[in-house]
């Protein structure tokens, strides 16, 4: 057992998928030319005032409910004051004194063991813009793009309840999955829709007393967050083992060097001088509003898993795997709707489809074989039109090209042969060509019988119906 163990907490920033920004009517679309989705309000021009986007509040309520938080009846906004050129007002409108959701929890599954992680709070804030550093040698300027300024963010702050990288990964995956489920964000990490900050302290293994906490910003993917946790744990361990102290500080993740580094003193805001934003009135979240959001909440993972077990008669294991991601569950449901054999489709999902997705690192939406195509493959097996072996080939082809499986089977003549006349011909040929094997079968060697069946299947190029082959062969060799 190592002498020190990490204690990890998360602050997760989620860009909400509202059509418009949190305090003005500008679009939140990603990828527009710089400074084309801006107005006096999100540019922070003199005299302008923010007006809260109710949809953003609703999404935050949804998030708070999904994370089992208490919802604050009167929620307010505060100003977080710091100077940075991507922050037009030089303060960020956030929530400090009356966060929308507080004291929640989420259960995570760590290699089969369920662990409960406490959520300190869920609050709303506005995103900042972006600085673009020109890739011109010697350039002594940066450019500011404020398209993103004012995009609604939900920040989810956990308690330091995580102890290993596995737990951290499970937590991040669970959150991402949950946020996709409740349809508040598309969570595209490559577009910065989901961003992580971790805080790590070390304590003597088994001890209750926490060590000094270090916060690390600027983690744009789960992989980075894990690398950072590993590095920071090693860094702090080395310090403690040398008898040195860990400073309470905020560090930045340096992706190129794969290390955390202390922020320069000018990069650190020592005091955010939070105070209630006098431009915004408190928002009353009435019981009716909360109930309305709750009533329209999309199905959560637990509920979906239970329903899969009941509705599709799936084992717990299958249901858990299929509902671990909303997009996978949706794919499965579409396939199951197209052909009524939920268990067979589940088997195909768990083996073939998930493997392909993992290998290619893509989402089900980007998988060339559509759910209806998968259903067609299973249906052709069930109707004895193709064998299981042929089905695997058809799947592989369709998964590559996106061609319709039925069309592949027809075009390549893969339909199963059930005409006994044709099969008899292959059986007779095989018997004639392999007298030794026939003799062994007659002597009672069942293994050789299977080998002979294989010979016949080969002659049919896999298309002969295996049951018929068996039957006919048995009748020929008494």
């Amino acid at each position, binding site marked *: 057992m190592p002498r020190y163990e990490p204690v990890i907490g998360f602050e997760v920033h989620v860009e909400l998928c509202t059509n418009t920004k949190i305090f003005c009517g500008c679009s939140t679309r990603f990828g527009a030319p710089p400074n084309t989705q801006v107005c*006096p309000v999100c540019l*922070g021009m*003199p005299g302008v*005032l923010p*007006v809260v986007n109710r949809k953003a509040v609703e999404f935050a309520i949804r998030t708070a409910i999904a994370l089992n938080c208490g919802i604050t009846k009167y929620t307010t906004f505060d100003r977080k004051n710091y100077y940075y*050129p991507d922050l037009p*007002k030089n303060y960020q409108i956030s929530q400090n004194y009356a966060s929308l959701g507080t004291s929640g929890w989420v259960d995570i599954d760590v290699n089969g063991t369920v662990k409960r992680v406490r959520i300190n709070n869920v609050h709303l804030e506005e995103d900042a813009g972006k600085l673009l550093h020109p890739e011109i040698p010697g350039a002594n300027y940066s450019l*500011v793009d404020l398209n993103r300024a004012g995009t609604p963010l939900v920040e989810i702050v956990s308690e330091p309840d995580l102890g290993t990288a596995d737990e951290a990964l499970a937590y991040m995956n669970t959150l991402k999955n949950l946020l996709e489920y409740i349809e508040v964000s598309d969570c595209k990490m490559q577009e910065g829709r989901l961003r992580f900050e971790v805080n790590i302290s070390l304590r003597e293994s088994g001890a209750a007393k926490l060590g000094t906490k270090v916060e690390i910003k600027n983690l744009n993917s789960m992989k980075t967050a894990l690398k950072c946790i590993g590095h920071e744990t090693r860094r702090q361990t080395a310090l403690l083992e040398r008898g040195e102290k860990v400073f309470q500080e905020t560090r930045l993740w340096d992706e190129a060097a794969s290390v955390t580094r202390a922020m320069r003193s000018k990069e650190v805001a020592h005091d955010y001088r939070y*105070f209630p934003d006098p*431009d915004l009135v408190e928002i009353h979240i009435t019981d009716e509003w909360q109930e309305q959001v709750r009533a329209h909440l999309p199905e959560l993972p637990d509920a979906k898993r239970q329903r899969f077990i009941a509705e599709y008669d799936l084992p717990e294991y299958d249901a858990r795997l299929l509902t671990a991601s909303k997009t996978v569950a949706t794919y499965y449901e579409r396939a199951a709707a197209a052909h009524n054999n939920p268990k067979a489709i589940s088997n195909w999902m768990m083996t073939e489809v998930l493997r392909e997705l993992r290998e290619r690192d893509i989402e089900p939406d980007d998988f060339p074989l559509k759910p209806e195509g998968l259903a067609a493959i299973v249906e052709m097996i069930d109707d004895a039109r193709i064998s299981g072996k042929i089905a695997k080939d058809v799947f592989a082809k369709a998964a590559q090209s996106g061609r319709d499986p039925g069309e592949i089977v027809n075009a390549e003549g893969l339909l199963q042969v059930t005409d006994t006349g044709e099969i008899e011909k292959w059986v007779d040929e095989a018997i004639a060509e392999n007298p030794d094997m026939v003799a062994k079968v007659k002597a009672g060697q069942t293994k050789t019988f299977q080998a002979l069946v294989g010979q016949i299947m080969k002659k049919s190029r896999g298309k002969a119906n295996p049951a018929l082959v068996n039957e006919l062969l048995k009748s020929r060799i008494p």
Partner: protein
Amino acid sequence: MELYEMTAHELRGKFERRELSSAEVTAAVMKRAADIEPLVRAYVTIAHDEADSAAAEADRALAPGKSAPPLAGIPIAVKDNMCTKGMRTTCSSKILANFVPPYDATVVTRLRGQMAVITGKTNLDEFAMGSSTENSGIHKTFNPWDLERVPGGSSGGSAAAVAAGMAIMATGSDTGGSIRQPASFCGVVGLKPTYGLVSRYGLVAFASSLDQIGPITRDVEDAALLLNAMAGHDPLDTTSAKIMPPDYTTFINRSVKGMRIGLPAEYFGDGQEPEVRAAIDKSVRKLEELGAEPVEVELHHSPYAVAAYYLCATAEASSNLARYDGAQYGMRAEADNVIDMCSRTRARGFGAEVKRRIMLGTYALSAGYYDAYYVKALKARTLIKRDFDRAFEKCDVIASPTSPTAAFKVGEKTDNPLEMYLSDIFTIPVNLAGICAISIPCGFTLQNLPIGLQLIAPAFEEGRLFTISHAFEQATEWHKKRPSVMPSS
């Protein structure tokens, strides 16, 4: 009487009877403004061309058979901290000296909707921080009654312009007395509406929880007309009240019989000039003659108002003014890196008083001081509000001086900020409580300087203020006096 000396309601009658056109009145006002601007310096920007074309358009709307809005064709000056699309809006600060907003403040939109003629932008203490307009980063403004004296502030340009005939009416903004005190110093009417009655959208923020736009006019009826145009909910300002304001002109020409006038002992103690005190006492007796009943009330926490105000207002200001960093608009001081650019821009762009208040506010919000200063100031604010609630159980309006003194000399108080801050001792509590108050002319000192009477009413009871101040005005002649500023030839 000269055309530029008339009130909006008099002009309205003449427009309707075709005795006058907006073009004629506008020409007279713009000429007067150009003639005496070198002496009074009320404006930051005079908008001759815009005014001419707005007047022509108003005259078309005033043609026979058409129903023009009440302020059509009336020349109105706009305080230079309210954004005007395409017209420079400086806040009298070097840092915004070249800032041209791409949008109108809601109040400006409403004035344009009424086809008012915007004459230009009036001078103020930089970012409305001051009580004399001496803190303007552009130039000082002088009191038309005595050009060696200040016009008050921060809406000094607007008050001076209205007093001197350089506009028929004007907009002002009032955070701690910035409409009422200059109105008092310049012998005109100034109303600070209830917080939330008038939209703040496009008003460059000083202290967001206290700022309120209101009218500065030559008489009470004009103030009601201008407030009619300004008041009402604005979806762009969520702190604006969701109420349907009444027609404020219906509150004039009403009797004040039985109206109870609260006289707070705290407002009639030491610290005011005897001449001011005498004028207020006389005004109260005049109201008594008209049938009002004086009653004594208490405002125990008033002594804490100035301190609480300078914590709340500066705290908000320190954050509101953070955006002026040279990155996006306004002045930029060049530097090798962004941090130096920001600090140099602010060091060169802001004046001394603005810097003083930003530092005060930053301190008040800092970790370790927040509870001791900011939170405590908010508590004092609540107590002051409660004082007023209790007082209004006993009375309908409260009377007091607007300012403890008449207009002081230019430079007299610039070396002593604290003394300058006390200039707003009677006006500040009204902002902290979020209620409404008016300042009306009620006498003159021996040196022929105007004195203002402040009347305070509960939230959204502007109607009461119009009733009582109109009755007072009808019974007195103070509002008819005009300063005699003569262009130097």
